[in-house]
């Protein structure tokens, strides 16, 4: 309790909420902007928040990493986390996940919605996995009204596949043009002999 004075709680909770949902470390400047306080105040708050977790022996910590704040599991419990990762994480990409990765590789930059449109199904879960494993990363935002996040493949992806650059990806030959579907349809509907 001592670590986090009562009158700081409101601001501290706002910091916690935002850092909790972020997928990347958040720079203190950004937090300061959101809360409309100074960067120094953010640092003060985060120090106090971190100390309160320590004091309560929580399983996570609030740390400053790569210029930003993030939650991560406490090192004391790495054993559980490692077991969890080994136990439960997939060991190879499913065909559907590979397809999603292929779409990103060939169509980057691309948004989640565009991927879903190509795949015909929501790809959020798969995308989270690909991002989390570092094969895919956000590369910017769409100019459109939704400002959707755009994704592309990472350096790590190129290395893993042994590619020097994206230009190294095998070309996709053009698809055979549609058979004249209408014609065939007509034939099918024409009363014909025994099938």
């Amino acid at each position, binding site marked *: 309790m001592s670590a986090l004075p009562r009158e700081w709680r409101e601001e501290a909770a706002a910091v916690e909420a935002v850092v*909790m*949902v*972020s*997928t*990347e470390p958040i720079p203190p400047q950004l937090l300061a902007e959101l809360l409309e306080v100074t960067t120094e105040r953010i640092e003060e708050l985060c120090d106090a928040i971190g100390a309160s977790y320590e004091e309560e022996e929580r399983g996570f910590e609030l740390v400053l*990493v790569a210029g930003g704040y993030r*939650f991560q*599991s406490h090192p004391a419990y*790495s054993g559980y*986390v*490692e077991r969890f*990762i*080994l136990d*439960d*994480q*997939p*060991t*190879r*990409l499913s*065909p*559907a996940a*590979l*397809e999603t*990765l*292929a*779409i990103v*590789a*060939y169509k980057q930059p691309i948004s989640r919605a565009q991927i879903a449109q*190509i*795949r*015909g*199904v*929501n790809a959020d*879960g*798969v995308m*989270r*996995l690909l991002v*989390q*494993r*570092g*094969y895919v990363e956000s590369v910017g935002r769409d100019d459109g009204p939704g400002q959707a996040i755009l994704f592309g493949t990472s350096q790590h*992806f190129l290395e*893993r*596949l*042994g*590619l020097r650059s994206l230009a*190294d*990806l*095998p*070309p*996709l030959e053009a*698809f*055979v043009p549609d*058979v004249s*579907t209408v014609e*065939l*349809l007509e034939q*099918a*509907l024409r009363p014909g002999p025994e*099938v």
Partner: protein
Amino acid sequence: MTYEVHLDVFDGPFNLLLQLISAEEVDLYAVSLSRIVDVFLVELHKIEELDLELATEFLLIAATLVDLKCRRLLPGSEGVDLDEDLALFEARDYLLARLVECKTFTSAAAALLECESRAERSSPRRQGPDDRFDSVAPDLLAGVTKEMLAGAARRAFADRPVPVIATAHLHGDEITVADTLDLLVGLLPTRPRITLGQLLRDDHSTPRFVATFLALLELYKREMIDLEQQENFADLVIRWTAHEGSYAIDDVESYDDMAPMSKR
């Protein structure tokens, strides 16, 4: 090729009837006969392409309403055909049951929306393990070559949207091309060579034939099968040529299974 109605415009005949009744403050008979018909006709016109099923449903409701209203205007009930009366009561009960059902789900939908709005006020943490654990997580791309990736891309870009052709007006509501496609994608990989005749052996009704044929065309277009006919009128030979095991056309395979947290 898709044959569907733009559903944003209206919510179907029962919703419309419900709205109509509510808007007219429940007394349908205060409204003129022509207005009832007009409203339904206006909705019918909003349908850009003709959907036989939907049009029929609209007409049926409109006709029943007109019929009900006529009865109400007729004095007394002498000399009325008993069978016809019963049929009318049946139609009325049917409409009533549908209205109640429709109202129930409209309310349920509102409740779901409320759940969603409440849930939206919280965002889940999605960050995952930090980089310290990178070495623990197995490399998912182990054994994957760039050729495999290209193959996956070809599959992904093969024209996805499945044309759903309502064959319902031909044969109940049972056989659709979408369903047939799924059936074939399950079956064909296990039978590398099969003929159309064999596919239709158990059911060679016209709707089944049409649905199967259209589904085969779709698969052909996606380069998942080869079609061959030795001579005119010979049985069509189907060969499964798509690579790798099975993948659902509808892509309704649960993506949850491949998310980092598999369900247990």
